[in-house]
């Protein structure tokens, strides 16, 4: 027996055995938590995937193909105007940070070659919080106020944090390395306004397809609600027109897409999800069989879907197991949650910020987890505090940040993030 190589499988088998031996099946809390996890997954699958996630993936894919990162980076170079660079770095996360793995290289680039410490830390704070997918899903699942507060809070406080970091370390702002940024000149394929129309139509599909029913049955919001599928359909029709005119997709392919979708929406006028799925499938077929940028668009979309869906499924299962659906309990008793992050005290906001800062949330999984916490009595303020500090920091990425900034600046940054997220949470909690 060669123990040197065999101890690993032995360890796995023994721990697997111990888990099975002490498996808490039959204990009501555990059994219920398992059911909760499946209920939550089902609810997500029915409510959020088709109308919300699918169009969101297409939008995220389009952003990474049709918006040139280089055109943004030129505002973050060493010669850039300081005011402009703070402004740009605080909002550019929405288009630059679609994939979480790009945040850290960009941050180190902005710090070392570009606009310096202030804008770099501003970007690092807001980037992961304001990427399109995160904002869309937060607004959809946790409610529009929290989604908007997350975006606004991240942008405003990133500038504050950037300025404070710059102020704290103004003396040792390092000399810029002589290496110039090499950003290839972007190819301009169509004017900006055409891209603008393209994105506007896609966002309009997303927003109106998910338009919630308002409480009253009159007034402007109810009017919009009753017309939502009409507006969604017209936006989709507009989108096919845009694809024909500016993306040189063959007209007969688009007609083959429009015709079945129109027939299906007539046949199943009470189940709009059916024509919606047909449209999404059609668009996928057309774009994926194209040769040009449309194919690239689909590939990016597909990459996002492949990358994010498993993480989200896993996150929802864990959230359901630990916290249950809103109003139900999972493994963690409600009063623990209430004790730690209930209400809007300084303590609960601070607790949420600190936990958020150190814990690692895989892309977007912070949302189902927060949904569970809110359902168990977490306050709105602490929820926002966690949303702000969570994606920006985690123990693993603190180590990477330390390798770029050094220990002192990293500690300053982490403390600032915790303090600012706490303050932001308290303000929001007091207002709502």
């Amino acid at each position, binding site marked *: 027996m060669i123990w040197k190589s065999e101890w690993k499988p032995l360890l796995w088998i023994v721990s697997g055995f111990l888990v099975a031996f002490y498996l808490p099946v039959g204990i009501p809390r555990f059994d219920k938590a398992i059911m909760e996890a499946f209920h939550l997954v089902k609810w997500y699958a029915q409510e959020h995937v088709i109308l919300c996630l699918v169009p969101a993936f297409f939008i995220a894919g389009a952003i990474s193909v049709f918006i040139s990162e280089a055109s943004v980076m030129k505002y973050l170079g060493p010669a850039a105007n300081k005011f402009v660079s703070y402004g740009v770095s605080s909002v550019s996360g929405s288009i630059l940070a679609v994939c979480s793995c790009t945040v850290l*290289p960009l941050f180190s680039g902005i710090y070392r070659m570009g606009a310096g410490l202030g804008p770099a830390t501003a970007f690092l704070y807001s980037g992961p919080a304001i990427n399109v997918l995160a904002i869309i899903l937060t607004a959809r699942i946790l409610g529009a106020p929290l989604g908007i507060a997350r975006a606004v809070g991240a942008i405003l406080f990133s500038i504050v944090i950037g300025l404070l970091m710059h102020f704290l370390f103004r003396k040792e702002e390092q000399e810029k390395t002589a290496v110039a940024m090499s950003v290839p000149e972007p190819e301009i394929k169509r004017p900006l306004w055409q891209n603008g129309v393209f994105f506007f139509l896609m966002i309009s599909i997303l927003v109106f397809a998910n338009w919630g029913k308002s409480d009253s049955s009159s007034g402007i919001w109810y009017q919009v609600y009753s017309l939502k599928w009409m507006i969604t359909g017209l936006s989709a029709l507009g989108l096919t027109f845009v694809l024909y005119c500016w993306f040189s997709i063959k007209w007969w392919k688009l007609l083959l897409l429009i015709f079945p979708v129109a027939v299906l929406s007539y046949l199943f006028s009470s189940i709009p999800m059916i024509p919606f799925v047909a449209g999404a499938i059609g668009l996928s077929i057309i774009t994926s069989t194209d040769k040009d940028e449309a194919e690239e668009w689909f590939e990016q979309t597909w990459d996002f879907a492949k990358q994010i869906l498993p993480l989200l499924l896993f996150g929802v299962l864990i959230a359901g197991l630990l916290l249950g659906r809103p109003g139900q309990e999972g493994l963690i008793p409600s009063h623990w949650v209430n004790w730690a992050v209930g209400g809007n005290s300084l303590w609960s906001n601070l607790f949420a910020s600190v936990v958020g800062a150190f814990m690692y949330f895989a892309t977007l999984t912070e949302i189902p987890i927060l949904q569970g916490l809110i359902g168990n009595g977490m306050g709105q303020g602490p929820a926002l505090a966690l949303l702000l500090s969570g994606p920006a920091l985690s123990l693993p990425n603190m180590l990477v940040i330390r390798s*770029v900034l050094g220990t002192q600046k990293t500690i300053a940054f982490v403390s600032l993030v915790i303090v600012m997220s706490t303050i932001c949470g308290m303000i929001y909690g007091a207002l709502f």
Partner: protein
Amino acid sequence: MKSIKILGSGCAKCNKLYEMTNQAASQLEIEFEMEKVTDMAKFVEFGVMITPALVVDGEVKVSGSVPSVEKLKKLIKS
């Protein structure tokens, strides 16, 4: 002998660029060596901010996108 470097933090896009560049270079039937650079501090030396990036003989050819194999062939040759 061409020296080809792929800069990236190990995300899906970076691996794809590596594979496609490898394919393109093999099709060109030239002598080349390929290297993956994952250390972010090294990106700075090339002036690259947006990954993945392709560096051929010390010159940045691609940054932030994954071009087609045909396009990569041209970029490696030039």
